[in-house]
């Protein structure tokens, strides 16, 4: 494994690079891209930042990670406007509100700053901005997938969905999607959403209490990392698997969640490949600038992967930048067949 460092300088130089340029690209100014996020310090986006960092190292650019810590739209708008004032070379915005970013994005485009959206792209019916492309997987859609997957194992009974911060733009759409999926199925399932807390310690207590008050749950879902991991712990604590709990699942890949999957306390967690949500916007913005706009950023679905007991192994055994669990650069070996649908 090579550890080429976490600095932002271009990585290896091979071939016949033009003086100073990355790879054999011509020399470019050190472009600065600004990524505006709704929950800047959320662990979900740690790999996103690594992705952006790696892309910048590759291409000789730099990026700034900013926005709001607590999904406050006004703060994101402030950050976007500040980036425009600072004449950023490109913008990537998590468009968590379909109305709020229309004007700032237009203003940026008017100023010749290319803008892409990542991770969130307005609402289902309205992407909300004139961004050039969207890189990511819809929050609502991922929530919908969460619900759909649960439906494979549950036909009736009570299903609960935990959400750390009700009304917060990064996760509310997910739980709305899950609820919709269950509703669309027409099964006689009663879905209830329960607020936990941004503080994982409180969240665990709340999920614990809910589980005690509802021993006959058929399913437990969560839409944020903290609640997901807490579900795993509570399922284990009360041995809920033996009491009729048919499905337990959630989001993100923090260690405790992976351990719970391995132990069978959680059935699945959703990997949204956040690394790509950072890597690709930088690449797209770079190419747009490099090509003078000829290479137009393309809509990219970064996909959604269900991590289950079957494929959790590599996630657990290797700590990588790609999942955020390590800062070191290293190559992850894999072997054997690649699982696929038949």
């Amino acid at each position, binding site marked *: 494994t090579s550890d080429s460092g976490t600095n932002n300088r271009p990585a290896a130089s091979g071939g016949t690079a033009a003086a100073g340029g990355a790879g054999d690209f011509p020399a470019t100014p050190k472009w600065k891209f600004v990524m505006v996020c709704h929950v800047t310090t959320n662990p979900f986006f740690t790999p996103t930042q690594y992705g952006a960092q790696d892309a910048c190292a590759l291409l000789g650019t730099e990026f700034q990670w900013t926005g709001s810590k607590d999904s406050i739209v006004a703060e994101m708008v402030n950050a976007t406007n500040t980036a425009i*004032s600072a004449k950023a070379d490109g913008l990537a915005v998590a468009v968590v509100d379909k*109305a709020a970013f229309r004007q700032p994005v237009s203003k940026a485009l008017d100023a010749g700053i290319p803008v892409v959206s990542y991770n969130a792209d307005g609402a289902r019916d309205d992407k909300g901005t004139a961004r050039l492309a969207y890189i990511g997987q819809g929050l609502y859609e991922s929530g919908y997938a969460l619900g759909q997957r649960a439906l494979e194992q549950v036909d009736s009974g009570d299903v609960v969905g935990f959400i750390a911060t009700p009304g917060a733009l990064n996760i509310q759409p997910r739980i709305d999607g899950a609820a919709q999926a269950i509703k669309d199925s027409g099964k006689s399932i009663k879905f209830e959403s329960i607020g936990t807390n941004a503080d994982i310690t409180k969240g665990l207590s709340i999920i614990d209490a809910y589980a005690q008050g509802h021993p006959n749950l058929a399913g437990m879902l969560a839409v944020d990392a903290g609640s997901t991991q807490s579900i795993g712990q509570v399922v284990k604590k009360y041995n809920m698997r033996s009491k009729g709990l048919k499905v337990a699942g959630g989001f993100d890949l923090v260690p405790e969640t992976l351990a719970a999957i391995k132990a069978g306390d959680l059935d699945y967690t959703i990997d949204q490949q956040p690394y790509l949500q950072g890597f690709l916007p930088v690449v797209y913005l770079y190419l747009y600038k490099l090509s003078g706009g000829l290479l137009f950023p393309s809509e990219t679905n970064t996909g959604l992967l269900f991590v289950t007991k079957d494929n959790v192994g590599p996630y657990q055994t290797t700590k990588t930048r790609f999942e955020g669990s390590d800062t070191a650069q290293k190559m992850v070996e894999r072997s054997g067949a690649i699982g696929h649908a038949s």
Partner: protein
Amino acid sequence: MPDISDGLRESPAPADVAGRPAPDRPRLLRRVRDGFLRRREASVLVVALALGVYFASASEAFLTGDNMVNITQAAAPAAIVACGIVLLLVSGEIDLSVGVVAALAPFMMHYAIDFWGIPAVPAILLALLTGTVIGLGNGFVTVVLKVPSFITTLGTFYLVTGIVLTTSGAYPAEIPVPVDNQIGQWLGAAPWAHLAWALVIVAFFHVLFIRTRWGLHTISVGGNLLGAQEAGVRVGRIKMGNFMIASTLGAFAGLLEAFRVHTIDPNLGGGTGLMFTAVSAAVIGGTALAGGSGTIIGGALGALVLAELQNGFNLIGISANPYFLILGGSILLAMIANVYLSRLRRAGKTT
């Protein structure tokens, strides 16, 4: 700044018992300078200016018109809410719910217009009135039922959060069409609307605070509750009124922000975020958490300092994680400087 600190060290002595004759420097200049230095806001102003100078030298974008708009828009809501918070803090109370009232107000406007068919202007007034009524409730529970305001407004905080979330389904709404026009421009969508409103409101409450009986009695109530009662000050009325002012200003700030970001978001004030920023601004500006003293202009300058820090470091391009580190460090440095400056100021004060 050697000139200023020089001036600060000197103590002009008209009221000196020893009767030292006043030095024969140009009097007008001295009076202007003394007048400035006597104001307790002077030190925060110096800090705000110093930060401005620093950021302007670090990034040429800082002083552009666009960025001035950014800063004023970031500072204004906190400055406006801080007016109410200063009054409350000075009278010895606090309001934790002011930030969620800011989130509720635009929803009230939205419901009024889109669901209840109320015209634009009455709907906006209704939204403001909602704030006033919540303030009245806070005041009632605190003053009449004698629950400490921290707890009263903690309860209100959750209560209003619940109202916002249940009525909105925890989902943002769009600005209603009847106000998405000139009205919206006036109320926050136009670039300089925030600054204009902040100036008007801060000026109004500054005068209220230092030139009216209301302000005097607010200080009395917070400075010596028993003494104020003995002097016949209507303590309950003052506190209730300040709760109502704070909540109404919260509602107004919420409307401004909703029009600016052009969406009605259940998380608008960030829960306790806006309240926190406003209290911080007030305290930075020289208001005592324990009551009895404060300044409205100081609170506004405090909001400006915080907005400058936020804007400046973003402009320079500090990413989120180190941002907090740097922000924390600079708050500490700036405030140590602030205290130092105001000590110099006091040392040089006439009285």
